[in-house]
């Protein structure tokens, strides 16, 4: 099949970008969305043009590196799917597809579809961990965790840090990302000693990075490729309130 593309091109952070039109012929329905971009880029290189820069790595939906905003939706039209796992069988022959980078003040564009998400790393560095040095651990089974809590903790820990929640939110809020890490650790006995300091430190850093506030539209949950639940945000808000009251 044939796909028409409108792709955001931008030389670097400073320059102004715009949309460029491309057509990719002979797209197979078994191709992933990124493999279609591979085909486009091969053609561009052969023509002597610069290929479209985009982030990608594992191509199996787990590294969180791919980040395309497709037809107005983070990671495209399929629920619970990263761009690399989106296949062309979900598009129609002759369709025009608009592809943009994540758009958020805290995620500046580096080139074309590549953005800088290091703000997420800095939020984790501010407190998204349990302080345990190597060699300090007790026997793993000396810390039983109720299965239900372990499962909830896992659901939150499944976050891949791709930033789709921020891209999908009209406020560019990072609450889903931050709350996923806060919840994962708050649900485990190991996470208790630092529970309230952690949530304060991470929220503080989140605000410093320039992410917007949460207004409960739920766009983050709807677009999250790992379907992280918005109830994590409620859990984080509760812990944050408790921490503030205790202060």
């Amino acid at each position: 099949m044939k796909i028409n593309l409108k792709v955001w091109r931008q030389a670097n952070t400073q320059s102004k970008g715009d949309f460029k039109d491309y057509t990719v012929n002979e797209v197979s329905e078994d191709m992933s969305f990124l493999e279609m971009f591979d085909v486009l880029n091969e053609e561009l290189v052969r023509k002597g043009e610069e290929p479209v820069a985009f982030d990608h790595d594992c191509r199996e939906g787990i590294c969180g590196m791919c980040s395309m905003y497709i037809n107005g939706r983070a990671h495209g039209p399929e629920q619970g799917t990263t761009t690399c796992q989106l296949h062309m069988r979900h598009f129609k022959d002759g369709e025009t597809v608009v592809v943009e980078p994540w758009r958020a003040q805290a995620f500046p564009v580096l080139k074309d579809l590549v953005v800088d998400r290091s703000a997420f790393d800095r939020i984790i560095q501010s407190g998204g961990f349990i302080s345990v040095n190597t060699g300090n651990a007790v026997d793993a089974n000396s810390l039983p965790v109720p299965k239900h809590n372990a499962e909830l903790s896992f659901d939150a820990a499944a976050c891949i840090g791709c930033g789709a929640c921020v891209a999908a939110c009209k406020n560019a809020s990072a609450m889903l990302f931050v709350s996923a890490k806060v919840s994962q650790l708050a649900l485990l006995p190991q996470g208790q000693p630092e529970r309230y300091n952690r949530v304060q430190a991470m929220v503080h850093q989140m605000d410093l990075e320039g992410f917007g506030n949460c207004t409960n539209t739920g766009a983050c949950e709807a677009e999250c490729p790992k379907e992280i639940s918005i109830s994590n945000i409620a859990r984080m808000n509760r812990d944050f309130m408790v921490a503030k009251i205790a202060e």
Partner: protein
Amino acid sequence: MSLDSKIPEGPLAEKWTRYKATIPLVNPANKRHIEVIVVGSGLAGASAAASLAEMGYKVKVFCFQDSPRRAHSIAAQGGINAAKNYSNDGDSVFRLFYDTIKGGDYRSREANVHRLAEVSTAIIDQCVAQGVPFAREYGGLLDNRSFGGVQVSRTFYARGQTGQQLLLGAYSALSRQIGKKQVQMYNRHEMLEVVTIDGKARGIIARDLVSGKLERHFGHAVVLASGGYGNVFFLSTNAMGSNATAAWKAYKKGAFFGNPCFTQIHPTCIPVSGDHQSKLTLMSESLRNDGRIWVPKKQNDPRKGVDIPEDERDYYLERRYPAYGNLVPRDIASRAAKERCDAGYGVGASKMAVYLDFSDAIQRLGKDVIAARYGNLFEMYEKITGENPYERPMRIYPAVHYTMGGLWVDYNLMTTVEGLYATGECNFSDHGANRLGASALMQGLADGYFVLPITIGAFLSKDIRTKAIPTDHPAFAEAEQAVQNQINRLMNVKGTETVDHFHKQLGKVMWEYCGMGRNAEGLKKGQGMVREIREAFWKNVRIPGTADSLNPELEKALRVADYLELGELMIADALNRNESCGGHFREEYQDEGGEALRNDDEYTYVAAWEFKGDNQAPELHKEKLIFENVKLVQRSYK
């Protein structure tokens, strides 16, 4: 130069404990002044960097991705082994050691593997303490499952995302140290050269992938944790960016390369769907706990899998290997699938696939139980193929997955260049000729948390008087110039073909002649073809854009230039090893039943290759493997 593996004296089970107690230490005041460079932020790199920083060293970490959390360890699915014996099924450190040695077809070092088994239990403790949400039983205690090549349940797992959860644990430990300014993190940086001064590794040249600028970084020691080289084959289960450049540059600076031909072809991957294919996706080995592998009994059977009645199906693994059945080691399962497909029993449109069928398990346990165990894998399969594996059997075929070979290291994990270390998949050390499932995560974290941070003291303790060397030292200038020259040369080829064009050609040759089955004639032919592709690459590759900006084509070209050299070394190693062992199956050496025939008299050694200059034959060094605690037998899983 002779190889000294520096294996400590004493009985096997006491070597590590005794040695640990005698390794020289660096006092805390001195650690503050010692800088260590870590290249790579996967399980081995992140855990080593975090642990070294906790101990007080100044650490710099480099990764090519936009965040250390993206390293490809994240994609490991099934689990991590540890000799906890929580299942009360007779497991022990010795048994894990023995299974790993046997699984590796007796081509790994006893002392290293025993140490791995010893520290395995502490890894689980450490990860749980970090908040890694492993699977649990209703009583709140940890759950285990079984993996290929063993008869106990010692594999800990976190749904089908064990690698992700372990990596995020290591990443959180690393992030904590970055936050404390004990680690300086360099995202979107690629190491392109090792800097050696007076024979010691003293730094690296890295390229900032956003600005294109070359940077010089000093370290008292350099640790490579840069992963394996499976992408030589173009199609593999590795991430697109996984590459061999750091290891290859180290090789060209004097680090020997161990057993480069030992590559693991994983039996259960989603088959290739067409020429556009950019990578292959693994379906976890854990699926073989409940899935049954079969092909039709009739050649070229045109019927759909679900339409073929039970008595017309050949469960060939259960038939050939009744003791282990579907859970035979990876090399054996892969070869058996290839054998059936080559003989005309393959399924699907390409006929290069076999079925992995869950209908029996769903009947026995119910769909819910299967969904709880493998739900995310089934979803992933459906996304990629458009087929529902709850209703029809999965189609699978082997794919390149892991490289057991890598930089040769001694017991301290130091390469033949002093002060240059290699950990995790980047080294050759623990898996011999075949890695067992759930052992890669174990090795990466063992090296990073519990081995390297201690053994590196043997080198650094002698270095406490060495001041940081300024990066205007001529050795840095020279190394940077070498990188600059290579980049200039690539940019100036200005040919007509893309980087991927050459990479795909190389991959096809390697898969055809140095893949699951190899023979002397094919290998020689492949060697010539690799040389031709390399020449064509340097004459005709086209890299648009500039070198002083974000340029993914240039990044790929630099990596492929190295694959084109490494591929030839892999072939040379495969040609040298006139036996079949583990993942290295030389068709000339098999028994009547088609099983691999080792030659212990002549090949019980590690082949360590020394670089002798461009376009010159590398020199082979042999590290004799001595087995004092296990008896070498023909592996049998029957």
